[in-house]
C-alpha cells in the first residue's frame, strides 16, 4: 500500500515534467482512469550490475543497467525506473530511489551513522532489482535480481593521487634544499625591493622617533596568509625591539590577536629586550570589517606612524587603509595573496608584495638558510608546473588527454 501511494506521488510529480517530455497521454496520469486503460507489461531493464562505489567512505553502491526495450521505443510505455533493494534474495524489497527518467545508472548511498535515518550498514549482503514502471501503477516489470553485493569504505582515494604526488614531491624538495642549506651550500636569492624596504623603513621610523604600524589584515586564524604574516611580524618585531622603535598591532580576529601577542613577545625576548614588551602593543579592535578600518584609520592619523605594513588577507578595506596612510605621510609596504586587492595596494602603496612574494617575505627577512631552502623548493615546483604545462600542451596537440585527466581532481 505504501509503495503504491509512493508511486502515485511520483507520477504526480512527473506531471510537471510532462509538457517538457511530450510523451505519454496526460489523461492516463489520473489514477482513477488507469483502471480502465489496458496496459501491457513492458520489457524489463536488463544487464543489471552493481559494485561498491570506489574511493568513498562506504555505505554506497554503484548500479548500472540497460534501458528497457520499451523505453522510448517498442511499446513505448515505460515512463521510468526505480531501484529496489533487499537484504535477502526473497525480499522484502524496498525502493531506494525516486523515479529515474531514461537513466542507466544510480548510486545507492545511505546514511553513514547508525543514529541517522536511512542508515546503510557496510559489509552487509544487498540484493538489487530495477523496476521499469508504466503510467499504470499496477503494471511494471522487474529486472533480474543482482546480488549479493557489499559496500565498504576504502583506505585511499585514488582519484586524489595527483594531489598526494604533489605534496610528497614538494615535501621532498623542501627537506632536500633545507638540508643542503644546512650543510652550507650558498643559495642565491634575488632581491625584492618591497622586502628590502622593510629594513629601511624600520630605520626611518627610529630616526623619526615614530612607531611602526603592522596590520595583519582581515584573515582569520584559518588563513595561511595570516600564518605567513605572523612570521613576518616576528622578524619585524625583533628588529623593532633592537632599534627600540614603537610597534602598534591592531587586530581584527581575536585568535589572530592571541597568536600575534605570542609572536611579538617572543621577538622581544629574542632581541633581548623583554622589558620593552607591552601586552597592549597588540590589541583587539573589533571583529567587523569597516569598524576595524575606522579604528585603524584613527590610529594612522593620530599616532602618525612612520611606516605602515599591511601583510595578510585584505578585502575592500585595502584602499581605504592605503589612502589614509598616504595622507598621514607614512611609508607603506603591503603584501597580500588576495588577488582582487593586489591592484589597489600596487597603486596606492610605496611597495607591494604580489601574491607569492608575501610567502617568500619571511624567508627573506630572516635570511636563515633553513628558510631560504624552502624558497628554492618553491622555484623548482614552479619549474615543474611550467614543464607540466608544456607537456600538457604537446599531449593535447597530439590528441591525448590522459595528462589533463590525471590532474582533474574531484
Amino acid at each position: 500500500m505504501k509503495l503504491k501511494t509512493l508511486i502515485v506521488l511520483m507520477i504526480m510529480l512527473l506531471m510537471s515534467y510532462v509538457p517538457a517530455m511530450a510523451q505519454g497521454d496526460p489523461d492516463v496520469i489520473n489514477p482513477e482512469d488507469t483502471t480502465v486503460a489496458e496496459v501491457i507489461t513492458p520489457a524489463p531493464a536488463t544487464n543489471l550490475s552493481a559494485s561498491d562505489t570506489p574511493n568513498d567512505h562506504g555505505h554506497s553502491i554503484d548500479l548500472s543497467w540497460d534501458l528497457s526495450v520499451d523505453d522510448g521505443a517498442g511499446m513505448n510505455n515505460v515512463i521510468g525506473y526505480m531501484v529496489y533493494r533487499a537484504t535477502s534474495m526473497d525480499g522484502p524489497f524496498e525502493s531506494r530511489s525516486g523515479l529515474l527518467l531514461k537513466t542507466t545508472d544510480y548510486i545507492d548511498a545511505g546514511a553513514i551513522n547508525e543514529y541517522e535515518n536511512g542508515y546503510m550498514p557496510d559489509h552487509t549482503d544487498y540484493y538489487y532489482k530495477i523496476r521499469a514502471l508504466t503510467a499504470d501503477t499496477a503494471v511494471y516489470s522487474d529486472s533480474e535480481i543482482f546480488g549479493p553485493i557489499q559496500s565498504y569504505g576504502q583506505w585511499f582515494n585514488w582519484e586524489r593521487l595527483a594531489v598526494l604526488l604533489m605534496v610528497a614531491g614538494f615535501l621532498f624538495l623542501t627537506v632536500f634544499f633545507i638540508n643542503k642549506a644546512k650543510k652550507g651550500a650558498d643559495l642565491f636569492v634575488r632581491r625584492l625591493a618591497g622586502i628590502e624596504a622593510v629594513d629601511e623603513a624600520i630605520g626611518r621610523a627610529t630616526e623619526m622617533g615614530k612607531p611602526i604600524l603592522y596590520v595583519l589584515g582581515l584573515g582569520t586564524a584559518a588563513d595561511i596568509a595570516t600564518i605567513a604574516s605572523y612570521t613576518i611580524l616576528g622578524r619585524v618585531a625583533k628588529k623593532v625591539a633592537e632599534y627600540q622603535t614603537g610597534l602598534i598591532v591592531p587586530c581584527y580576529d581575536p585568535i589572530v590577536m592571541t597568536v600575534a601577542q605570542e609572536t611579538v613577545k617572543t621577538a622581544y625576548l629574542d632581541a633581548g629586550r623583554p622589558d620593552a614588551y607591552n601586552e597592549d602593543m597588540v590589541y583587539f579592535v573589533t571583529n567587523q570589517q569597516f569598524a576595524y578600518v575606522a579604528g585603524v584609520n584613527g590610529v594612522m592619523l593620530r599616532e602618525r606612524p612612520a611606516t605602515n605594513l599591511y601583510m595578510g588577507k585584505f578585502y575592500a578595506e585595502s584602499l581605504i587603509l592605503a589612502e589614509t596612510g598616504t595622507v598621514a605621510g607614512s611609508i607603506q609596504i603591503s603584501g597580500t595573496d588576495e588577488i582582487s586587492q593586489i591592484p589597489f595596494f600596487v597603486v596606492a602603496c610605496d611597495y607591494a608584495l604580489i601574491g607569492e612574494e608575501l610567502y617568500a617575505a619571511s624567508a627573506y627577512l630572516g635570511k636563515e638558510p633553513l628558510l631560504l631552502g624552502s624558497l628554492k623548493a618553491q622555484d623548482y615546483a614552479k619549474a615543474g608546473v611550467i614543464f607540466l604545462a608544456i607537456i600538457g600542451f604537446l599531449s593535447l596537440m597530439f590528441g591525448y588527454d590522459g595528462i589533463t585527466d590525471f590532474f582533474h581532481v574531484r
Partner: protein
Amino acid sequence: MARSKSISIIILLVVIALFILSWVIKATTFESDPDRISLWFSVRDAFFITMAAFLTLAIFSFLYKDNPYYKFAEHLFVGISAAYWMCVGFWSTLVGNLVPNISETLSTFFKVPYKGFHFTYFVPLILGIILLMRLSSKHGWISRWALAWIVGTTAGLNLIRYLRTDFISQVSNTFVPLLVDWKGVGPFFSDFSLSSTGQFAMTLSNWVIFIGVFCGLIYFFFSKEHKGIFGTASRVGIWVLMITFGASFGYTVMGRVSLLVGRLTYLFKDWLGLIS
C-alpha cells in the same frame, strides 16, 4: 587657542541645533504617515533616522580631515560592533550550536532543541577554556596548546584545500590547446574571422594565456637572477600582471561609485526627502 576652542563649541552647538531641527521636522512628517500609530513611534523613528544621517555625515567629514565628529562615530562604531559580534557569536554559535550538543538542561534553559549528547563538542569547549587561560599570568603558557592545535590543523587542512581547489585546477586549466580546432593552414586562412568565438581569436587567446602564465611564473622565481632571456620573460610577466591590475582597478570604480550612490540616496531620500 581660546578662539579655536570657542569656534569648535559654536560648531558643536550648530550641529546639535541642526540635529534637533531635523528630528522635529522628521517627526512631524512621520505624524501624517498612517503607518506610524502614535506620536511616540514617530518621535522614536525620527530620532534613529536623524542619528543615522548625522553619523553618515560624520564619517564623510573624515574626507576633509580628522575631526571630533569622526572620532566620535569611529569610537562608537568600534564599541558597538565588537559587542554586536560578541552577542551574535554567543547566540548563534554557543547557544545555537554548542549547547544543543552537550547539555539538555542548558538547551531547555535557552529554549533550543536538544540534539543529543555529542562528546566531540567537548573538544572546542576545552580548547576554548584553555585559550582563556591566557588571562592568568602564571598558567598563560597553557593557551599555546590551543594555538598549536589551531595553527597545526589549519596548516594541514588548508594546504590540502588550496592544492585541490585552486592550485591543481589552475594547473590543469592551463592545459589549453594552442591550436584550436586545427584543420590545416588552408582552412585557417580561408575561414579567417575576428569573431570572439572564431578559430583565430580563440587560438590567439590561448596563446596569450599560455605566455601570460609562463612569464608570470618566471617573474615569481626567487632563486635566479632575472637576466637575459629569463629577465625578458620575467619582464613580460610583470607587464601582464600590471595590465591586469590596471584593468581590475578600472573595473572596480563602478562598484565603488555605486556604494556612494547608495549612501547619498539614503541622505537625499530617506532623510531629506529630496527625491522619491
